[in-house]
């Protein structure tokens, strides 16, 4: 493989940033292998976070889902599930790690800003300025059944509430002036008079009056991530986020198109193009040779997409229960049933089931694929497969062409699924000058190369 000439690209000095996403809910995490560990034991989280820190990752990332996913009339049984409250888990990791960023996915619909901003600021202080917040807006009535207010929010309002939520949070985080606490026990009072402000907001979504209880952290306040893919979501990111956690990181052209779309929205929002990092979620399978990598990827896919998982994915695409069918046989003959989506299975993965089924049929026929093979080849997926050197070349091209700034990597095995990346891929990236060789800062904002908070 020829190496890219680093001077012949738009961003010759760009560096790749890695986060690790400990997922805990979905079929990407293989649980059937003997090396698969606990999804809830704190030792698993610590093992992954420490591996990532050894690999000089920017961040350790936890997701959020406020109701257990359901399928075929009950709790979904096929995939890993059951995870800790993210801020609680991350506060524990803050005590057991030194440098890595700690990012919590937290929802703006079923939280209140005074409370959540305070929890995130606490994590930020306890970690010495390493906290991040992935702002998500899941709002369906089905999730709302776990909360006092139920499903109270219109779809159209999800980002309006999120935006107002974030502005209250920022006001809470900025409520204390620098040096707000007395520097001596002899002072007249613990806080310097006038240095602690009040936050008063009467908005469309919030009526809040509070006294913030925390100073700024070493990085000012938590780094803002955003993970919605709709146009509204991308605009929200362009106005408010420091990092976009996207789903566009497998195909170069798709990644570049997404990045250019986001940069266009950034300009429209009046922000600099380098004010936002783009970190798509991905999976990385590494082998010593291309052939070994392909074989390993095959093993991974077969363990992720068991016959039952294949039927579950097909059921959600076709819109009715296919669990009795033969996954190793042909695709169901029926047409998909398109119904309103209630959110029982997280974010909907396709917009137009009819079109997707038509494409599946055509390709399955052409290749002689079973339903399971079709799901493996064409179903929800993302990821990169290759040798350490081959992947390093590929990723260098992605980042130097501005298609992305790095990846949020989901290990397919917990807790040791990051080890290959840390031990084999990172050195190759370092050799090519696209990856740090030591942490140069202490805060998440510094790791990401973001400007200090004003």
């Amino acid at each position, binding site marked *: 493989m020829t190496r890219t000439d680093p001077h012949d690209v738009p961003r010759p000095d760009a560096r790749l940033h890695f986060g690790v996403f400990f997922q805990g809910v979905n079929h990407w995490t293989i649980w059937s292998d003997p090396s698969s560990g606990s999804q809830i034991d704190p030792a698993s989280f610590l093992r992954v976070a420490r591996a990532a820190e050894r690999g000089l990752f920017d961040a350790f990332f936890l997701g959020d889902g406020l109701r257990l996913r359901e399928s075929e009339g009950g709790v979904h049984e096929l995939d890993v599930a059951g995870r800790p409250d993210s801020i609680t888990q991350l506060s524990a990791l803050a005590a057991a790690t030194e440098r890595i960023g700690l990012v919590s996915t937290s929802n703006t619909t079923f939280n209140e800003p005074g409370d959540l901003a305070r929890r995130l600021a606490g994590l930020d202080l306890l970690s010495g300025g390493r906290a991040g917040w992935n702002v998500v807006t899941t709002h369906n009535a089905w999730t709302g059944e776990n909360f006092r207010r139920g499903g109270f929010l219109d779809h159209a309002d999800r980002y309006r509430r999120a935006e107002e939520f974030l502005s209250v949070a920022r006001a809470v985080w900025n409520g204390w002036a620098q040096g707000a606490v007395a520097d001596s026990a002899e002072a*007249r009072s613990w806080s310097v008079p006038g240095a602690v402000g009040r936050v008063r907001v009467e908005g469309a979504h919030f009526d809040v009056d509070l006294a913030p209880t925390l100073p700024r952290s070493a990085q000012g306040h938590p780094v803002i991530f955003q993970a919605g893919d709709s146009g509204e979501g991308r605009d929200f990111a362009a106005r408010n986020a420091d990092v976009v956690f996207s789903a566009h990181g497998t195909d170069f052209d798709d990644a570049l198109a997404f990045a250019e779309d986001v940069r266009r929205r950034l300009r429209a929002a009046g922000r600099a193009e380098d004010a936002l990092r783009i970190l798509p979620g991905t999976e990385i399978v590494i082998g010593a040779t291309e052939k070994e990598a392909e074989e390993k990827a095959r093993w991974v896919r077969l363990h992720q997409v068991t016959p039952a998982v294949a039927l579950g994915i097909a059921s959600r695409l076709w819109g009715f229960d296919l669990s009795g069918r033969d996954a190793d046989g042909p695709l169901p003959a029926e047409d998909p049933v398109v119904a309103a989506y209630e959110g029982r299975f997280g974010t909907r993965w396709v917009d137009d089931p009819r079109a997707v089924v038509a494409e599946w049929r055509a390709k399955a026929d052409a290749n002689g694929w079973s339903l399971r093979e079709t799901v493996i080849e064409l179903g929800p997926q993302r990821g990169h497969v290759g040798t350490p050197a081959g992947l390093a070349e590929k990723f260098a091209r992605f980042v130097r062409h501005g298609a992305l700034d790095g990846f949020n990597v989901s290990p397919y095995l917990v807790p040791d699924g990051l080890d290959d990346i840390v031990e084999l891929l990172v050195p190759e990236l370092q050799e090519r000058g696209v990856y740090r060789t030591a942490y140069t800062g202490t805060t998440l904002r510094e790791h990401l190369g973001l400007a200090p908070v004003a």
Partner: protein
Amino acid sequence: MPRPALHLAVEIDGDGAHPAAWRRAAHAPGELLSPRRLARTAAAAENAGFTLVTLEDSILPPGSADGTGPVGRIGAVERAAFAAASTSVLGIAPVLATTYAEPFHVSSQIASLDHVSAGRAGWVVGTEEDPAAARAWGRPVVGGADAIAREARDGLRVVRDLWDSWEDDAVIRSVATSRYLDRSRLHYVDFEGETYSVKGPSIVPRPPQGRPVVLAPAGLVPAELTDVALVGGPTPAGAGAAASAAGAPLAFAEVEVALDAPRETARERIADLERYAPWEGRPDRLRYTGPAAGLVELLADLAGRVDGVRLRPLVLDEDLAVLSRLVLPELFVRRLAARPLPGTTLRTSLGLPRPLSRFTTAGAAAPAPEETR
């Protein structure tokens, strides 16, 4: 051999029980909000031999009536999780109020604290009584003692049910049937209260202790929903009577303590702080001021009347050191109290059984998970 009777808890919020305690703290005032200081305090309590620390909280600033005290505080759950990861045998119980907070979140937070601490979590059921808390939350005021008690009670019911909603063995990892979970061992809680309903199940697997230890001020919530009643009285006999009346499996007396320190007596230390703010006494708390030996005698007396104490030291940095050097060792030697044993859960330290999930299918008694991991 039966474990000694008196369980020892200590409140480690802020700089101490006195509103001006920060003026005698062994650190710069702002250091109160640092991770180093929290880790140091938790380690001091653990090394002293306490079974449990509690962490006060509110969305409102702690403060003092005259506005000169500390107005900063990190959330109790975040502090508890951080402290859990920096200790190994200490029980840790943050205050959380369901007056405004979502019971679903409270359940997840405490369950997660139990996971990160390998079974050392407790929950002190709190209330937000000040209407200013409603404005800080941005929610309608819950006004009046009855409504506040209702929200505490309903919140506790929901939280307990959510902890029970995963049976202990719900994760089956059955490769043969392609199932990670057995949905028949997961349960909708279908809570219907006066003001809201909650569906469930929890998003967090059952905590290591089954249910983390629930502590609550006596009389706030139905005693049968709690493990430890926090009781008080101006005298040991009064505390003992309150303990008998509480009806919970265990009762801990609230005791404020100010001890003679190497260079100054307790009285001198209090007098020093009284220059800034008064230390108002409360009828529902004992208060001890004086030499360490006198506190040992008081605790020996209380050992026959209550199951434990929660100490509220005047100044943490000063009184924890005296407790550690002179009080707890004496209690241990006299077998009035004992250190928690490494690898045990808080429930085990307190002599409380591990509860089965109330949804567990009759007859199918679930095995208790291993005590140590």
